[in-house]
């Protein structure tokens, strides 16, 4: 169909770095490493202060709270990002929508401390709900909660807070879009490369794009740079050939490959925290939550007083679980949720089993 050719021409211009530089994401959400570190420190300081004030206000000793370090906050956020694969799967989302949700989530916790929003799963659900709307992939709140195990009230309450934390820049650009553009363009620019090689380059690179969400790449590099890095990680030979064909100016070629290499280095040393470490941070995080601390103290007191079993059980069920997907399962149908956490833990973020399957439903 003629309309199809018109829009594939258009897809290529999206890869344009120039257009990206006009985007609100670039203006509001890209940093130098120094700026990024300063931003995180500020957020961590805010969180620390928030915890202190909330404990004082509840007449509790702030020293009871085990404050998270900048690194621990980041570990927790990245761990949650790796859980997003599972949510995307139960909702059967195209990777564009998933990417938007994860980018929302990362931006949210760049300016908000996990010590303030100490139930990151709720935020993650809200980011997904908002992303489905922002990307025209609508679910009613009831459907959404049914599939993900999210709690409607939590999501609706947080929705505006998330929008606000995004500074209302609701258009999130991920590396999937330019990657698709490069994939199409390589086929015309390097006609001698067999289609199967280009195909596996694309599939491999998609996995690295997925992995990039566990790094700071989205704050430090542009989406085209990240997608080139993902291609470089998969097949450096063809990627370099492609860049040489596209960039006749050696200075431009060198500058681009240098930047891309920095991103490659980042993608190649993603270390995933152990489950134990994350649970340990989760424990600390719960100690920062004044309500949970109050509940814990009350429970201990009741236990000491040897009160009746009924009350005790009630409080037990309110005591939060480790911060992973199972957390929110308690109030909602277990089936959808169970599959969400199962798939999250088996596929993890680095290797979506259905990378090529989801490519066919890709929205952008």
């Amino acid at each position, binding site marked *: 169909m003629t309309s199809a050719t018109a829009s594939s021409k258009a897809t290529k211009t999206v890869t344009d770095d120039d257009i990206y530089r006009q*985007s609100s994401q670039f203006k509001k959400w890209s940093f130098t490493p120094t700026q990024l570190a300063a931003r995180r420190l500020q957020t961590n300081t805010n969180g620390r202060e928030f915890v202190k004030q909330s404990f004082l206000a509840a007449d509790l000793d702030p020293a009871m709270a085990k404050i998270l370090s900048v690194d621990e906050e980041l570990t927790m956020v990245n761990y949650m990002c790796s859980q997003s694969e599972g949510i995307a799967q139960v909702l059967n989302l195209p990777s564009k929508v998933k990417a938007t949700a994860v980018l929302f989530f990362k931006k949210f916790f760049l300016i908000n401390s996990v010590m303030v929003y100490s139930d990151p799963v709720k935020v993650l659900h809200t980011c997904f709900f908002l992303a489905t709307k922002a990307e025209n992939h609508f679910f009613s709140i009831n459907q959404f909660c049914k599939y993900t195990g999210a709690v409607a009230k939590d999501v609706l309450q947080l929705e505006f807070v998330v929008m606000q934390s995004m500074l*209302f820049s609701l258009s999130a650009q991920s590396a999937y879009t330019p990657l698709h553009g490069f994939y199409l363009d390589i086929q015309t620019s390097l006609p001698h490369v067999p289609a199967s090689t280009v195909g596996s380059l694309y599939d491999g690179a998609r996995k690295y794009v997925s992995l990039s969400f566990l790094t700071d790449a989205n704050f430090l590099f542009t989406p085209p740079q990240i997608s080139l890095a993902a291609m470089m990680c998969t097949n450096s030979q063809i990627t370099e050939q492609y860049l040489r064909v596209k960039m006749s100016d050696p200075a431009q070629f060198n500058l681009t490959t240098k930047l891309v290499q920095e991103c490659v280095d980042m993608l190649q040393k993603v270390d995933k925290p152990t489950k134990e470490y994350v649970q340990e941070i989760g424990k600390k995080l719960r100690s920062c939550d004044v309500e949970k601390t109050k509940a814990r103290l009350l429970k201990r007191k009741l236990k000491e007083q040897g009160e009746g079993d009924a009350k005790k059980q009630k409080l037990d069920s309110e005591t939060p679980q480790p911060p992973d997907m199972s957390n929110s399962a308690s109030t909602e149908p277990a089936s959808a949720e169970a599959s969400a956490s199962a798939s999250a833990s088996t596929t993890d973020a680095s290797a979506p089993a259905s990378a090529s399957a989801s490519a066919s439903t890709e929205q*952008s």
Partner: protein
Amino acid sequence: MNDAVMAKYTKDKKVGEGTFAVVYVGKQVKTDRKIAIKQIKEGEFKDGVDMSAIREIKFLQEIRHANVIELIDVFTAGPRLSMVLEFLPTDLEGLIKDTKILFRLGDVKAWMLMATRGLHHCHRLQILHRDLKPNNLLISPTGELKIADFGLARQMPNPKDKMTPTVVTRWYRAPELLFGARYYTPAVDVWSLGLIFAELMLRLPYCPGEDDIDQIDKTFRAFGTPTEEEWPGLTSLPAYPKTVNKYPHPSVQELKMRFSAATENGLELFQAMTELNPADRVSCEEALTADYFTEFPRPTKLAELPGRTE
């Protein structure tokens, strides 16, 4: 944070009401600049923040152009979301209907030029507006035309992804949408602009269909019934009618009669914008280079355009 944003503006009085929003006029306290506050109605959308508000915010954030309405801020008051927009007291529909105002050729040209520039910018950013009509082309106090209402807008999808054909107010709906096309292009907006062009010249809607069936008939009557030859794939579009009335394409002579004041270059652009086959329709980029925009009379200067309030 939210309260601080809200405190930057005053909300003075209600100036209008649409289906989903109430609009107030107010001021930016610091600068005394007049602004409009568009407050999304409560209870219209039980699934959290209204979709069209999300679309509008999302796209207006990305578009900064002299001919597209500026989104200045967003805040909530209680459960209600408010958008702070630049104040644009007049719209093209109002001007068209105001028979006391005479449109000169240069006025129509100035509005068409501004609308095409604004739309070109949207299309460059891969954004489809999908609801262009005179009522959504607002006029600033200084006479500048601005495209508004991005509640139906969306990003251009991949060639393989389907979109809904039920967009654009009927009278301005392109034929491919009338036939239920699930794959379409920025050309749908160009069609709307072409119909607005006709309306500016005639001071009457050019294809005022009474329902979707009548819209197809009126479109064919105005532009001729296309054939499979002129538009390959036409008859296999999902909602292409089983039987259609056959009308001839209007001759140049016929068009000159319908638009007696228009110049040849003007009619040429109008025809290019309203090609039935979307693949043959001009893009905004091409439209901007049309001789119509450079020939005499020149587009009217802002200071001399009707509809200014300053």
